[in-house]
């Protein structure tokens, strides 16, 4: 996993971003205009480690904010902004204070947000919530590869839920996605 320092190094040459980060540190309210404009201001090109320039810049903007402001950025974010917040959460010193953001994303019907909610920060979700989220992925067709620590966290209760869902699908003449079948098989093994 990347770190804020690595992202800072990647974007070190962007003077405009450096100026904006200083501005946000002095005046957190400035983030309301800068965060949505990240793609237009700093670019959208790919970086190392599966990040894009705008995602990385947004992570640094969040890091420059008092943690309590992060929830407000998410609240008013469009989908890409929300995705960037969710992606940045594990890098930020926010403890479990941003769990409500993950819960918000899991309530949506947007497959991208549901997938992003199950990254490393989902370690802060308790088992019942986490199992429901995984089952929702299967239901929506979100690839289970999006789920952080899937095989470590999957338990017998999740297996029972998946088996019941498979039963319903089979009764309707439908199948589970192959990755869910594989997970179920694995959980059935003694």
């Amino acid at each position, binding site marked *: 996993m990347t770190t804020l320092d690595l992202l800072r190094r990647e974007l070190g040459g962007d003077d405009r971003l450096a100026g904006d980060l200083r501005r946000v540190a002095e005046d957190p309210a400035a983030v309301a205009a800068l965060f949505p404009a990240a793609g237009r201001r700093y670019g959208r090109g790919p970086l190392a480690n599966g990040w894009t320039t705008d995602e990385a810049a947004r992570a640094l903007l969040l890091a420059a904010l008092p943690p309590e402001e992060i929830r407000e950025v998410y609240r008013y974010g*469009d*989908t890409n902004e929300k995705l960037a917040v969710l992606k940045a959460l594990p890098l930020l010193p926010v403890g479990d204070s941003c769990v409500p953001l993950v819960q918000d994303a899991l309530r949506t019907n947007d497959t991208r947000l549901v997938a992003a909610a199950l990254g490393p920060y989902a370690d802060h979700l308790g088992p019942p919530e986490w199992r429901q989220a995984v089952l929702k992925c299967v239901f929506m067709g979100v690839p289970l590869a999006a789920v952080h620590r899937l095989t470590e966290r999957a338990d017998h209760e999740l297996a029972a839920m998946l088996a019941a869902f498979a039963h319903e699908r089979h009764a309707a003449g439908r199948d589970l996605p192959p990755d869910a079948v594989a997970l179920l098989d694995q959980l059935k093994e003694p």
Partner: protein
Amino acid sequence: MRIFDPHIHMTSRTTDDYQRMAAAGVRAVVEPAFWLGQPRTNPGSFTDYFDSLIGWEPFRAGQFGIRHHATIALNPKEANDPRCRPVLDLLPRYLAKDGVVAVGEIGYDSMTPAEDEVFAAQLALALDHDLPALIHTPHRDKARGTTRSLDVVKESGIDPGRVLLDHLNEVTVEAARDAGVWIGFSIYPDTKMSPDRMVAILRGYGPERVLVNSAADWGRSDPLLTVRTAEAMLAAGFGPDDVDRVLWHNPVEFYAQSGRLDLSDITGVESVFAGNSILRGGS
């Protein structure tokens, strides 16, 4: 035929509409913020609506290979309700979004002093955010509403080339054209404008700066009337280039002035549906 519907309220339409639109060649839409059938009573009701215009609705459109952008504003009717006015303070947050390509719909409903104030304030926001403006002309007292809107545009200092004046008709087209703004026509089943009347206007004024939309919403309306208008143009002897200009190039040129119109990688309509139901979690 490729169609850009520059004014349609998809929030009020079903996925069947998206499917029919995509099959008929609609590749891109702009959804302006407006009123719903039921008046709103607080700013939170607006922000949830705006969130949908920059969140859920583009996702839904994307399932059908249709690119969705929005315009954001406090509409003129609800500008008259003091309980809704505080949403003006929240607009800058939304006007900063990538998917927002204009301030709108602004303008007049009943031409009240409150509407004057909110209209002018939002033209100033358009200037501040370097965005074009989409202006609704009123359904009642339309001719006076149109000339008065043009006066407000002039006073605001916004470049008329960055203004789209919408819902025009035979009576109001000339004043708008003379003012140098882009001229929009909403094609409705019975009321605002019909495909044949639209063709007559195009014959009279030519395709320059003309935009045609369905303005389809929660009332009796039809999201395919853009396509029907294109067909009526061809039947009346207009060439494919004129049709493409009115139903694609003109809206692209107008909204591209925002610097935020993203039409990259729009999938071919045919390939979008291949065995694919909408991914809305209801499978």
